[in-house]
């Protein structure tokens, strides 16, 4: 079908339409916060005009880790094993420091099975964007608590979580991460700004995105929605049941708080950082996180940044050309080097 000039899609600075930055069709539940994040990732890369062949998408295992298939279809992707994306990403960046690495992970993938690798990724300050799609629940295995589930939240079977939540942002600051942010999947304006900031940062850029699970995020009052579904759907397959919800969006100003009602009827309070928050202050950042915790709020925005930090790859003082494609003469020492070593061993 011929295209009229006026119907031609808008393109970015490298002449590509936004459609070019899309991936395969999402297989996640309708209304999943993760899809909202994918949309903003697509938009951020499109708007920045990044060539996709320079991008690698990395993930572990879980709902969140499936999502790299749903954006940037022309970038290489690596869906590894559960909780071990950080080590894979580290290896990739060592092999080719010119790549732009985007890791997408979940709260189970990061805060439970992968906490060790998360810790060391933050500590090393490996240059990459690390997005946690945090819904406080194991979705793929049908609704178990994760280590970011709030204390007291109830599982589907009514059991209250007795343990405190791990705050990945606070941990990351303490570990030396040089860009620490939190956002909400339904706040596209803030999220895209944080993503763009992360993409221009050299070092690990962590964005912890609260991303409601439409299916399994059951807080104290949440049986409502479940009961509702039970009454309205016949027959009910408990495991496979996926209700349809619209994506939740918010739009609120800096320094203000907003209550968000999640799909299950529960509420969380998001507090946007003040304009006068100094994100370069490590102690200030930790104090604010502590205060927000005391007020049962999720602090959103750029919490901490250290633009002077040295990333791990720079620390290794590598040659400019990617290690992956160094020619033979650069990687095999000459014969006299071997002769010299042999002489010493005689």
């Amino acid at each position, binding site marked *: 079908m011929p295209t009229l000039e006026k119907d031609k899609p808008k393109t970015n600075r490298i002449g590509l339409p936004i459609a070019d930055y899309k991936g395969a069709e999402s297989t996640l539940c309708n209304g999943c916060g993760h899809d909202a994040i994918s949309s903003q990732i697509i938009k951020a890369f499109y708007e920045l005009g990044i060539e996709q062949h320079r991008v690698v998408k990395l993930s572990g295992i879980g709902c969140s880790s499936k999502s790299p298939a749903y954006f940037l279809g022309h970038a290489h992707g690596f869906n590894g094993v559960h909780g071990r994306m950080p080590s894979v990403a580290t290896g990739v960046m060592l092999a080719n420091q010119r790549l732009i690495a985007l890791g997408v992970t979940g709260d189970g993938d990061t805060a439970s099975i992968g906490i060790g690798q998360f810790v*060391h990724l933050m500590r090393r300050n490996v240059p990459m964007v690390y997005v946690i799609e945090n819904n406080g629940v194991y979705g793929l295995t049908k609704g178990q608590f994760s280590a970011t589930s709030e204390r007291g939240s109830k599982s589907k079977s009514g059991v209250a979580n007795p343990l405190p939540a791990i705050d990945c942002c606070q941990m990351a600051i303490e570990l030396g991460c040089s860009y620490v942010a939190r956002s909400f999947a339904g706040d596209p304006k803030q999220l895209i700004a944080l993503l763009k900031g992360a993409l221009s940062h050299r070092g690990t850029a962590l964005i912890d995105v609260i991303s409601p699970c439409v299916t399994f995020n059951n807080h104290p009052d949440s049986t409502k929605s479940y009961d509702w579904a039970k009454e309205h759907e016949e027959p009910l397959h408990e495991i496979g049941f996926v209700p349809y919800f619209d994506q939740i969006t918010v739009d609120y100003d800096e320094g203000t708080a907003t209550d968000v009602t999640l799909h299950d009827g529960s509420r969380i309070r998001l507090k946007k950082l003040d304009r006068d928050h100094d994100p370069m202050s490590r102690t200030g950042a930790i104090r604010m996180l502590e205060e927000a915790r005391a007020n049962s709020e999720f602090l959103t925005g750029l919490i901490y940044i250290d633009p002077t930090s040295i990333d791990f790859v720079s620390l290794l003082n590598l040659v400019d050309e990617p290690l992956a494609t160094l020619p033979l003469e650069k990687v095999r020492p000459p014969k006299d080097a071997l002769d010299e070593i042999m002489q010493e061993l005689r």
Partner: protein
Amino acid sequence: MASTIETAYADEIATKKQEWVVNDFSIQVATVNGSGSQTSNTVLMRSIFQMGVPVSGKNLFPSNIAGLPTWFTIRASKHGWIARKKDIDFLVAMNPETAGEDVLGLEPGAVAVYEETLKLDQIRNDLIFYRVPFAKLSAEVTKEAKLKRLLANMIYVGVVAQLLSIEMEEVRKAISRQFKSKPKAADLNIKAAELGFEYAEKNLPKRDRFRVERMNKTAGKIIIDGNSAMALGCAFAGVTVVTWYPITPSSSLCETLTEYLAQYRTDKKTGKATYAVVQAEDELAAFGMVLGAGWAGARAMTSTSGPGISLMAEFAGLGYFAEIPGVVFDVQRVGPSTGLPTRTSQGDILSVAFLSHGDTKHIVLIPASVEECYQMAIDAFDLAERFQTPVFVCSDLDLGMNNWMADPFPYPDKPIDRGKVMTAEQLEKVGKFERYRDSDGDGIPYRTLPGTPHRLAAYFTRGSGHNEKSEYSERSEDYKNLVDRLSKKYETARKFVPAPVLSSNGSNCRLGIIAYGSSHWAVAESQAQLRAEHDIDTDYLRVRALPFNYDLKNFVRNHERVYIVEQNRDGQMASLIKLEAGGDTEKIRSVLHYTGIPIDARTVTEQILRQEREG
């Protein structure tokens, strides 16, 4: 009184020149670890080596930093046998804690040099004892307590040198070499060795039959441990990403490699590195980094031992299933669990062969010598990239940490093989790219590297089910197609991995022996024993890789019995060979040695003879 008898005995021995045992004995030095004995032992071993006599040195040490017993065995062998010798001929007892036991373990007629305060001559009367006041002598060289202990160890070198007719000049040379950068320490140590030598000359008339005589069998040879040899192989294979987590007995591989890389792989103009070394947080991360780097096009490796192999199982499956190159060096130690961390074993073969859950099988290379440690390290990277899969190289503590004599390593004569990698230009030309399609019929698909500037280059790697286009798939046909192709790829690998080495004794040979790795040296010597002492000829097949690049079925068919020699309890290689050889499995017998101490020829010979007798 004693001295009169001793002198008379010595005179008697001296007149019977034909009874000298020349260049064919073992020395064991029993010390405490952390006492600097390693240096003394190396000096003693090198002194013999410098006299042209083939030597091998084996360190038996505890999993401890300082204060526990350690033994070092040097074998001099004019025949060039370098396996451990079962019996100790010449003991140097420096450790009060084990001296009694050490002396009781000797065969009658053996020699024991000991610190005089230990009074070992009261334990047995069928040995030849040399009593030396080591403590008093070292007090003559220094007043410093710590130095005294270190120097006592160098004094025994002098004593042993004199007793065994090792030339003092060679000892001096070996000490100077050892303390190359510390001339002061060299002087002090030479002084200590000389003191021991002079003491023995004056006070210890020769009463034993062992002596070293100059030969010409070590000219041009090098002495190196297997880990260093592998490190050299990696450096010359063009490794670019090295990750590791410290674990005995593999740590020295990456540590040595780091030194070589710093020296030989730093760009002279810019001072920048053509490699990256990362000490990972654990073995999982170490292997994850290798696969990330390998996927992105680096030549990546890690080294580990048993417990690390267990941790790597999950990633091994990912590497196999997603087809990502990477090299893992497994310097085996005794398991299960923590096991005996400082003792040797060949107990990982079976688990490495199939490492990970599901239908998984790996390419495994098994070096037997330091030369092969070097060569197979180079081969491993080529194979990993050619077959786009993790390749395991299984060495062991004996090979990896002990010193072995070898010919100098040859400079690689082939360029490196980067395998089937499509560039942007090739993609443009072909106009199509399907990551997991077997377009060549050898089971090996083409890959692209991230960063390739072409719209067709990108693909999605995953450990979950996928089709030829690397799309997620749970379809049965796609799964079966994929795992069958992986099997085909493994079959293709047969022709590429190192073939076994056959030493045949002609068509009438009834007995076959199969061995691998460091067991080789004991087997070669056992063959000679069987021939010389029992008139038994054997054919010997030394396996060097999985999958087997040989007609094992035929080898088993052509022999009445086949003995598979290995250093583990369950006959792990025998199991693999039985799978491979099919029908004739009742012919296959095992010769097993799993004490943590390196296997010796006598054990192999005895076990074969016993089973032959029993039929």
